[in-house]
């Protein structure tokens, strides 16, 4: 029973961070209708920024949030403005041009990181990296808990932004119906740019939060991109609430899989969920709630 509870706690905690990654992708999916296959790679960039700040300025990874998030926002804005938006005007036979473009962006980011930092595994050792506290028999890893609450706070902040501000409303309007939003005077071109920046900075936050827990290498992006789209499919395309639930479900499922099936199959769990959702629940969790 203790083992089960411990697994569950670990799953929920990592699930919080997965949610943060998933929300970013969901936002982009909702507004532009494309899956951003450079999502994990953007997180990798944020992690390297955090690492550099830690190594040279000895900045705490959590403090780097304030630097990495704006940096990635700008990177996201740049990518959307100069690489993805121009594609809308190009006549092409292939429907998935923008998705392909994100694959290319992801490859370039990974290889640039490899050029600068080499393929070595790096990690950040902080005083609290391996500390934990206990409630009953269950141990809570401190950086995981901090990360979870940061993720929670950012999510709340994001929802406030989406629900209460004008820009947030415009984003939701564009996601619902692009043409109608344009007719209502929303500058949808600018909204896509802001959304991509927002999605990138959310995944940057996830990167900063993960750095004290994970080790870092240039290819770390790929697996996280895959996790992010599993979450997006599981939650329902474009649904931010779905992405939160999907992230936690994926976290718990991976954690259970690692404990009861074996570490080698941990990565498989997400894909099994993906296939099951595709077959039995096309449309994802969004379908169950009708939200």
């Amino acid at each position, binding site marked *: 029973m203790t083992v089960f509870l411990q697994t569950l706690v670990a799953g929920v905690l990592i699930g919080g961070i997965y949610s943060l990654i998933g929300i970013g992708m969901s936002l982009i999916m909702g507004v532009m209708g494309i899956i951003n296959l450079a999502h994990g790679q953007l997180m990798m960039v944020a992690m390297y920024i955090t690492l550099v700040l830690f190594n040279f300025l000895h900045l705490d990874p959590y403090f780097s949030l304030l630097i990495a998030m704006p940096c990635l926002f700008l990177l996201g804005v740049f990518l959307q403005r100069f690489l993805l938006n121009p594609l809308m005007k190009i006549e092409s036979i292939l429907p998935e041009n923008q998705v392909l473009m994100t694959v290319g962006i992801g490859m*370039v980011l990974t290889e640039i990181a490899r050029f600068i930092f080499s393929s070595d595994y790096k990690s950040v050792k902080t005083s609290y990296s391996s500390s934990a506290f206990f409630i009953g028999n269950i141990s809570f890893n401190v950086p995981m808990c901090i990360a979870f609450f940061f993720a929670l706070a950012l999510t709340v902040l994001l929802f406030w932004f989406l629900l209460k501000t004008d820009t947030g409303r415009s984003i939701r309007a564009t996601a619902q119906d692009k043409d109608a939003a344009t007719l209502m005077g929303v500058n949808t071109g600018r909204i896509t740019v802001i959304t991509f920046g927002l999605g990138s900075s959310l995944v940057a936050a996830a990167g900063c939060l993960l750095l004290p827990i994970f080790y870092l290498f240039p290819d770390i992006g790929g697996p996280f991109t895959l996790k992010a789209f599993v979450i997006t499919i599981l939650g329902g395309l474009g649904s931010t609430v779905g992405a939160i639930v999907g992230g936690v479900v994926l976290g718990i499922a991976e954690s259970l899989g690692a404990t009861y099936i074996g570490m080698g199959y941990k990565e*498989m769990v997400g894909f099994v969920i993906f296939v099951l959702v595709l077959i039995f629940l096309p449309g994802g969790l969004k379908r169950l709630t009708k939200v």
Partner: protein
Amino acid sequence: MKSRNVTLIVLGILFLLFPLIIRSDYYQHLVIIALMWVIIGSSWNLLAGYTGQVSFGHAIFFGVGAYTAGILTTKLHISAWWGMLFGGPVAMLIALFVGWACFRLRGPYFALATLAGSEIIRLVATNWESLTDGMVGILIIQSFRSKLPYYYMVLALAGACIYVIHLVMKSKWGYYFVSIREDQDAAESLGINTTLYKNISLLISAFFAGTAGAFYMNYMAFIDPHVVFSLHYISIMTILVGIVGGVATIMGPAVGAFIMVGVQETFRSAFFGLAPKWISQGHALVFGLLVIFVILFMANGVVGDWAKIKRYVFRIKA
């Protein structure tokens, strides 16, 4: 029409004579690899270019074909050449499942499912050691020392593949495929069973990719999960071959395959030893940059944008 036939015949003769004139093993090897990519690229083009179902994981079918040939040798102790017969059909079985799961849905599901599928199957091939020998890979003994038999075999296969796709696209099926790409609702309302025809397109595509995989096993004589199920070097390369050459053109992937193998080899060998060594580490970076460049400036590829390229080049000359 006449002049096109003449061009084709001349090209055919050139390809037949090539290994007899150029005796270097290295260049013969490059052309064999390029011809193999012609098969994979053309098969992808049928599915993505003509039917509009972009596959991000053609490595699934390629790898399954290769593993079929390999496992026939290691487990059943028969020649890996049987794989040429069974590689395609086994890849089609996998394709049947993929198609059944994805083609009922619209949206990016197929692209994502193929991407996820190639990861799943790579993990399975890595972990199911009793069948695939996991990371150790499969090593067989090459049947021929000379490259000539392989050359003519892959040449015949590539020719057959292009010809079959040409025939399919001239038939009724071809028009169904294009109508699905252009407007699925309109196609449906005209009474075309879109799910069925998407599946047919996928099956033909998987067959050729699987056969190419089986050929790869026989030719290279060594495979492991990270080579044949690689996202970058198989799946992305396939897409690049397709879009560099030109999607939805018969000869596009053939042109693209030669360009891409040329680019890949140029960078892998650091401009044939002329440039500093570190360039060879950057060939994945070049791949990524090429994806971005091609999509931005040559969305329809060399063959599709030929008129545009010609105009541009002539203007520079004038």
